[in-house]
């Protein structure tokens, strides 16, 4: 007779074994490693948060300290590989296989370990993909999560950085897995309940808040004239003509410059209320001046940002907040919003090839994807119309009858022709391809596919790929905005001029922009201090961003 409850039975066994090192649900902090050795089994599928921003750092340290003779060959399924401990466990053999999305600070080490065969790679996912697989074939058997606080029943308050937690807990707990939460404190009454206690099996009082990284703070003081020029081009050449109201911004300086130009340059162009009203966006400090100037109607957030908490709580008309007043973020929902409900994604990348594929992966750095491919892709399941979506669709496909014609999401890559260390943005062959060859991958890790990319903005101008009718036109449109890179210098000048006549390429002067007007005085805030002052003192920047 088949047993139909082996998973639940296994969970009961884990709970019983872990109970030896806990009082009720509360783990004895001094016995954390013993506890983890008791509840884990070799080859378990384990999810550790491991998010974009917040980290279950104490649990990660505990996991890295378990005896590899007892616990080994774990299959880690986590969105963010961020802490050194996340990779240490692969060095020691505690873990073997990895499915992940993003690895910002560990991108160089993860590459080295992949080449060295220390990690058996499942796949590099987008966030939504990985979350989806939590419910299909990568359901965690054990989840190690992070929250701000818990009560005696194991109810959790995740605070502004809720991020991945509800998704991870949903899949794990209802998939008969074990949920272990690290919290900063255990309290009698929570400000709000983000995760119900009956989905949480054990709680560790870490005695201090989880580690969280300010990833989305861009210091206006570091913004260059060239970045400001690209921002001006985007506003006047894309936001205005398409009337983009619902959108997502990447985290680079170019898009931060756009945010800071809205109340100045955008205002001058009379665009207030006509663009940039609804966002799927982390709470970028650089958006404060636009919010304060009344540009923004609503923002839903993937996560939070260190120092923004009080400001967000004081602007509940704009941000999603709980009954306690603090921000409620949710990565899975916000990613879905970015995919289906936004008309534009605009972000930076490291490399673009002649077809228009782009990637942030180079041969030595595997930064992963995060959410950009979700935002930066055309949602084939989209059915609701909007003016920008329809207009982009018409540009791409003028011949199909309007009622049968799909719209297109605007997917814009923005950057300077040369990036950090004078590395060219435009390349003949993507580093991602070299990586795929080196690791013998079936699929090169492309962040945004060429057929999703609609525009490229550089200081030299805007290339509208929707209007290109042949591969040749497309290549010359890209070369035509590639500046002095080798790709740019290899352009067919006559053809580029023809593309310009058809407005496939638009130069600053074609848009009435004098590059010499692009200066820092146009920024609504020129320093972190300006942002703090614009927030009425509600934004409290972390010490590392201060110069006061």
């Amino acid at each position, binding site marked *: 007779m088949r047993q139909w409850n082996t998973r639940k039975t296994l969970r009961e066994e884990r709970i019983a074994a872990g109970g030896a090192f806990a009082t009720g649900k509360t783990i004895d902090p001094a016995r954390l490693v013993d506890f983890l050795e008791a509840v884990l089994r070799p080859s378990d599928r384990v999810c550790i948060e491991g998010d974009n921003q917040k980290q279950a750092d104490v649990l990660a340290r505990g996991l890295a300290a378990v005896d590899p003779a007892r616990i080994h060959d774990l299959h880690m399924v986590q969105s963010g590989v961020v802490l050194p401990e996340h990779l240490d466990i692969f060095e020691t053999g505690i873990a073997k296989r990895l499915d992940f999305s993003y690895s910002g600070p560990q991108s160089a080490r993860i590459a080295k370990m992949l080449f060295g065969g220390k990690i058996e790679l499942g796949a590099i996912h987008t966030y939504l993909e990985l979350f989806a697989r939590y419910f299909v074939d990568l359901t965690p058997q054990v989840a190690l999560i992070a929250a701000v606080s818990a009560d005696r029943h194991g109810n959790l308050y995740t605070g502004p950085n809720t991020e991945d937690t509800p998704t991870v807990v949903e899949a794990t707990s209802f998939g008969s897995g074990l949920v272990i939460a690290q919290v900063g404190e255990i309290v009698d009454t929570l400000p709000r309940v983000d995760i119900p206690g009956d989905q949480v099996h054990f709680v560790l009082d870490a005695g201090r808040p989880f580690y969280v990284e300010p990833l989305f703070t861009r210091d206006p*003081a570091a913004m260059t004239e060239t970045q400001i020029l690209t921002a001006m081009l985007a506003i006047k050449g894309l936001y205005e003509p398409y009337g983009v109201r619902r959108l997502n911004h990447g985290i680079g300086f170019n898009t931060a410059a756009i945010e800071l130009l809205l109340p100045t340059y955008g205002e001058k162009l009379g665009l207030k209320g006509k663009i940039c009203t609804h966002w799927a966006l982390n709470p970028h400090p650089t958006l404060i001046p636009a919010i304060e100037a009344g540009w923004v109607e609503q923002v839903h957030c993937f996560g939070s940002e260190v120092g923004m908490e009080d400001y967000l709580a004081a602007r509940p008309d704009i941000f999603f907040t709980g009954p306690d007043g603090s921000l409620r973020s949710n990565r899975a929902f916000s990613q879905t919003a970015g995919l289906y409900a936004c008309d534009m994604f605009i972000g930076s990348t490291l490399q673009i090839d002649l077809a228009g594929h782009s990637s942030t992966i180079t041969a030595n750095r595997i930064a992963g994807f995060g959410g950009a491919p979700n935002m930066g892709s055309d949602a084939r399941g989209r059915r609701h119309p909007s003016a920008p979506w329809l207009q982009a669709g018409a540009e791409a496909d003028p011949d199909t009858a309007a009622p049968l014609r799909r719209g297109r999401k605007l997917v814009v890559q923005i950057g300077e022709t040369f990036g950090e260390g004078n590395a060219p943005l435009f390349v003949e062959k993507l580093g991602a391809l070299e990586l795929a060859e080196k690791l013998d991958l079936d699929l090169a890790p492309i962040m945004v596919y060429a057929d999703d990319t609609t525009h490229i903005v550089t200081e030299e101008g805007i290339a509208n790929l929707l209007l290109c009718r042949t591969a040749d036109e497309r290549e010359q449109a890209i070369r035509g905005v590639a500046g002095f890179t080798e790709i740019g210098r290899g352009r067919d000048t006559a053809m580029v001029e023809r593309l310009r006549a058809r407005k496939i390429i638009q130069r600053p002067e074609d848009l009435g922009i004098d590059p010499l007007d692009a200066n820092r005085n146009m920024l609504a805030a*020129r320093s972190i201090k300006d942002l703090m002052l614009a927030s009425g003192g509600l934004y409290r920047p972390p010490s590392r961003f201060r*110069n*006061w």
Partner: protein
Amino acid sequence: MSNVRQSWYEAGARERIAALVDAASFAEFIGPERREISPHLSIFDLPAQFDDGIVVGAAAIDGTPVLVAAQEGRFMGGAFGEVHGAKLTGLLRAAKALGRDVVIAFDTGGVRLQEANAGEIAIAEIMRAVAEARMAGARVVGLIGGRAGCYGGGGLIAGCCSTLIVSEQGRISVSGPEVIETNKGVEEFDSRDRGFVWRTMGGKHRTLIGGADVFVDDDATAFREAARAALARPAGLDAAMLSAEQARLERRIARFGDAPDATDIWRGLGIADPQAIPDMPAAGFADLAAQYRESADDAR
């Protein structure tokens, strides 16, 4: 976009001078077209700058002739090399000879490492020239609010000036945060804790303890107005003034020598909520400082 505040912190040396003096009144001495570059940087395969990172010359403020100098903090951190230093020395000797006031916009990390010995002597020469110019009746007004702050020998030169005007961003110190951390450890000085760095060395703290005289917003116009006022103050440097400074500095050690943190000093000055000081806007802070600060009037 008109009526935009011009940030002193962001401005270059030439922009600072333009903001400071009467329109079209500035005449540069040994300008960039002379290409009097550092003879030493090429040893290190480093690019030179045509003015060696300092602009000096004659100008007028409200019609009154002055001598002006501005360091370029972005070139080699505004550091003093042989040529850079000699331009300022010459200007200060001219101040003494002409009995003419000098305004110096500091923006420096101190001595330029690649020509350390020349820079070190240059600082000594400049300090002597400042003191002698002041003894001859010239005012030497220092403005501090640039990216590089005013460190090392720059801090010592600033300490010789008759009046110091500082913004919040301006830091005045001898050893830089990284240098202290490297030599004495992160427990002694955490250079990455920028809030701590500014609390210990920044313009607000210096204003409160009397290390600077006038606090202004990060605004070129504010610096100009403050410089105008400073040029109207009594001039001179004599025994009485230095005795007063001796007493002032002794009193500071007696009162605050055991204070572990700037906020303890600020509380000791009578400020009820010292934690609120760093985030205070300039105007509010200036009012508060006027009430509680240690003054260095006639004691510098």
